[in-house]
């Protein structure tokens, strides 16, 4: 709760109570897993299976997130635009993409939009592209497209929130100086908005990393799919899911620490 000094988190407390005990607890759990992996055959096998899926989890996240932020940025500029057509298109996209479950969006992209797109390419390209088939579009790419579509809507709201949180005087000073709309965004407004929304972007990145597990519904072998396959083939659900959980936690915690580091770098002058 709020302390007597009006701070949300304890301001002036001893070193011991400020220490990140939760991190220590997780570290201990990690050590137990490492020890089990080194000594137990089952665990070391699960470990190697999950490691083989790690690349997929990391690439899906690393490709989808920047694209989602880019889409979100473009959409956010539409949301704050005085131009009614742009604003309505952006709002329509946000409401639709935010209102449909990510899993459903994955199915729609994978089984409706991709076949439609391939048909369209055939229709336009004729003989030259007759060899193109649905199966030429990898499932991984379909998932990435769906995640970008779903998360673009969240990033749009995040960026919009950042922009509207800036004092009006900033935009006024930028325009009064003679900066064009684009220059004002590029040099004055977006850099400040970005610093403010960093914690939210971090949240969304972590959330996207977790949702990358949805690729498994299309049979793409990420860490979730690998753990599930191993578990059902060997009836080792407890061990597999424990190891899988540990991996997600390790990844999300690393990301959280990274975001926190960035935040601290920018905090001093964020004003």
């Amino acid at each position, binding site marked *: 709760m709020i302390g007597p000094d009006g701070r949300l988190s304890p301001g002036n407390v001893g070193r011991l109570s400020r220490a990140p005990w939760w991190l220590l607890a997780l570290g201990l759990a990690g050590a137990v897993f490492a020890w089990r992996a080194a000594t137990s055959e089952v665990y070391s096998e699960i470990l190697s299976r999950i490691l083989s899926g790690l690349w997929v989890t990391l690439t899906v996240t690393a490709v989808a997130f920047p694209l989602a932020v880019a889409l979100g940025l473009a959409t956010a500029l539409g949301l704050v635009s005085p131009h009614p057509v742009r604003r309505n298109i952006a709002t329509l996209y946000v409401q639709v993409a935010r209102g449909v479950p990510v899993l459903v969006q994955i199915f729609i992209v994978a089984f409706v939009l991709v076949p439609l797109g391939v048909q369209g390419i055939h229709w336009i390209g004729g003989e030259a592209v007759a060899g193109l088939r649905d199966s030429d579009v990898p499932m991984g790419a379909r998932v990435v497209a769906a995640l970008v579509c779903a998360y673009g809507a969240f990033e749009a709201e995040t960026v919009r929130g950042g922009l509207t949180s800036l*004092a009006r*005087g*900033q935009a*006024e*000073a*930028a*325009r*009064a*100086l*003679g*900066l*064009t*709309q684009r*220059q004002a965004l590029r*040099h*004055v407004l977006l*850099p*400040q908005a970005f*610093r403010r929304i960093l914690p939210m972007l971090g949240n969304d990145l972590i959330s996207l990393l977790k949702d990358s597990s949805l690729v498994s519904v299309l049979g793409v072998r990420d860490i979730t799919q690998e753990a599930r396959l191993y578990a059902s083939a060997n009836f080792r659900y407890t061990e597999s899911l424990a190891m899988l959980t540990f991996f997600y936690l390790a990844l999300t915690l690393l990301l959280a620490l990274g975001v926190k580091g960035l935040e601290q770098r920018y905090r*001093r*002058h*964020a*004003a």
Partner: protein
Amino acid sequence: MDGADGREVVIEARGIVKRFGAVTAVGGISLEIRAGRVTAILGPSGSGKSTLLRCLNFLEVPDAGEVVFRGQVVRARDRELDALRSRVGMVFQQFNLFPHLRVLENVALGPRVILGKSADEARALARGLLARVGLSDKADAHPSQLSGGQQQRAAIARALAMEPAVLLFDEPTSSLDPELTGEVLDVMRALARDGMTMAVVTHEVAFARAVAHEVLFMDAGQVVERGPPEKVIDAPSGERAIRFFSRPATP
């Protein structure tokens, strides 16, 4: 177009009207700001002084009337406004420095991005201007590390960096304590001495009396007195101005 005293009219307002809902903030005001002259706009709070000033660079788009810059009527289109604003500097009550940029970069941004100067050129220019406002030692600081007076002086340097034809000051000292007010007014006095064309909305009557060539006294969206300071401030004719200027002098 030349004014009566042979000085070029840099910026001119013709019959400016600005309404906010049912309230008429500026009720049809004309004014001329001549090269090398300081025009002070005084008046009680809510009399429309700031709105009038903000109409000159279209931060408020007038509902009626024209703004004429160096003989050209300015139309409220993006490209024309950007061009106008790059020639008309503005200094705000809240300074509005860019908090994510160091002081030097705040000043260098306009010349670099708008005037297309190289980064080195823009920085050299900015250093010169910071020296002029007495902030050479703060070039690498962030705005949040500066006092209010220092921030406002940096904001003046930022406006000067565009080599404006006229500088608009919107209550530049109203959020400063008396000590800091002094250092900002000193910089403005030096600018006036160097022949800078300025329009200043202010509550600093003593400053207006000492520095301004022309004073406009506004009340309820109208200019009710205008003329040299010794007339408007020391011997006003209207009841409202007499009451306003007879209050105890501010330091």
